């Protein structure tokens, strides 16, 4: 377990560095939410989900759908590190003709369904979960949502339906970083009491620290054991996690780092990596 956690932490740091590099080169994109969701994505892509990067369409694979599509740099980095495509592709993000579009698209190996228009992803994921049930297959579906995103009414239509259809093979994850473009979620459109909302919609709710690998792995494992209802993991996160000047800053929701900011950010992330290596 200790080695696994260490491995996932180091993968998360690799992803964070790639996010910074990709976005600096792209000169646009969404660092804040990409960094807040990185540990969740690291756990999923390097441990939790069953997949075969050499055979992305393997029918028995677990499905992952990034409903908060704007945070695709984190996903693209995880896919490249898994070998879905060459990591050279990462630096083509958002460029004309690139396989890495500004929001997820099926031109990218490993992307199941396009996303980007917020609020639809939980529905897409519940459709996938129905697919597994119809085929009596045991693969699971994971859907990562943003906190601002769940202000969309479509999310709550999907929440109602997933519970109604008893989709226990569906696991939602909420990247609750408390910031959206215009400011603090609590100020823009409050989501609280968030646990009660999901519970009253018929979901099993697990709370965890979205940057604590042990807690995340535990949450995913518990989610898989819940029967007859879908589970949502409400992961408390920090927007811009890992880069001091991006943390808790709404401005970095949708602004790319400058080359100077990139240097500082990469240095900070390397320091984190060193610290982790020294903790034995």
């Amino acid at each position, binding site marked *: 377990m200790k080695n696994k956690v260490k491995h996932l932490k180091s993968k998360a740091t690799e992803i964070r560095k790639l996010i910074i590099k990709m976005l600096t080169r792209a000169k646009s994109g969404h660092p804040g939410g990409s960094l807040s969701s990185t540990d969740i994505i690291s756990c999923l892509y390097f441990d939790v989900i069953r997949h075969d990067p050499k055979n992305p369409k393997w029918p028995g694979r677990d499905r992952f*759908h990034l409903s908060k599509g704007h945070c695709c740099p984190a996903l693209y980095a995880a896919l490249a590190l898994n070998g879905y495509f060459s990591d050279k592709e990462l630096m083509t993000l958002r460029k004309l003709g690139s396989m890495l579009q500004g929001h997820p*698209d*099926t031109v990218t190996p490993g992307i*199941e*369904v*396009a*996303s*980007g*228009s917020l609020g*639809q*992803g939980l*529905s*897409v*994921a*519940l*459709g*996938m*979960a*129905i*697919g*597994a049930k*119809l*085929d009596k297959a045991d693969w699971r579906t994971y859907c990562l949502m943003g906190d601002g995103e769940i202000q969309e*009414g*479509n999310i709550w*239509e*999907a929440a*109602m*339906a997933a519970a*109604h*259809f008893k989709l226990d093979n569906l696991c939602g994850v909420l990247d609750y970083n408390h910031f959206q473009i215009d400011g603090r979620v609590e100020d823009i459109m409050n989501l609280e009491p968030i646990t009660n909302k999901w519970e009253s919609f018929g979901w099993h709710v697990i709370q965890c620290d979205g940057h604590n690998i042990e807690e995340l792995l535990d949450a995913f494992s518990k989610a898989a054991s819940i029967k007859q209802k879908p589970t949502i993991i409400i992961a408390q996160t920090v927007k811009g996690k890992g880069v001091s000047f991006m943390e808790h800053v709404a401005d970095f929701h949708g602004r790319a780092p400058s080359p100077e900011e990139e240097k500082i950010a990469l240095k900070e992330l390397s320091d984190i990596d060193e610290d982790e290596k020294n903790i034995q």
Partner: protein
Amino acid sequence: MEAQYARDVYGKTLVELGKKHNNIVVFDADLSGSTRTSFFRKEFPERFFNFGVAEQNMVASAAGLASCGKIVFVSTFAMFATARALDQVRNSVCLNKANVKIVATHGGITVGEDGASHQALEDINLFRAIPNMQIIVPADGPEAREAVITAYNTPGPFYIRLGRSKIPSLENRGEFVLGKGVCLENGKDIAIVACGIMVQQALEATAALKKEGVNATVVNMASLKPIDSELIIAVAKKCNKLIVCEEHQVTGGLYSAVCEVLAQSYPVRIDRIGVENQFGQSGSPKELMEFYGLTANFIVEKAKKLLR
């Protein structure tokens, strides 16, 4: 000419397809009795999902399920399948080229007494602009069956628009082929291009015009997207005057589609029969057809005007 509900035909065709193919799944949003997906539900309850009154969720879920290799038929009223779920249709269905077949009933003004809120008159306009979407407006029950089977057999998203009321079956309609129109009359004086229930009106208008010595061509253009550009240009060259008839706003539907083809390739004089930038209202289908100028009489008048 036996009249029948195209939606009855749809329900029966779904059952027919469901018996042959295990990969068909049907979604409805609390209107399965009206859309006739209830026929499928009774035969294959395990492959039918009622999403309640939540069309956006239904449509996006269909895209997710289609990504697992299923062919998903999604039904509700035309108003809600198109306008309500437009973003989901664009971004979850069409962008992914998902095998989602939206078969909507209660399209057009002939919804009747329910009035403006339920009379979809912009649906074709909304969907025609979306890449990858294929659109069929069948002219009668048997054509609805052929359209549904075509949608099953052809990859990608479809929109099939059916009406609420009974429609007579056309004689010598020919076979439906995606991307092809069919000439039902072959006169040389004027061409009438129509879809849906307006094909019947066009034929009645043609019969009336014949008595006055005017010979019209009538094209059933059930395939709106892809549209049969070749045939449109051919009849324009032959007749030099066109009238396009549709149970839809005159912006963005069949009239616009025909104009787009001819403006680029062979401009001719062209007039239209459709709803002129206004909402519908309550009334019987027959009254509404008269009120909004959608009957054979109006086609005859416009034809004469164009020929003067």
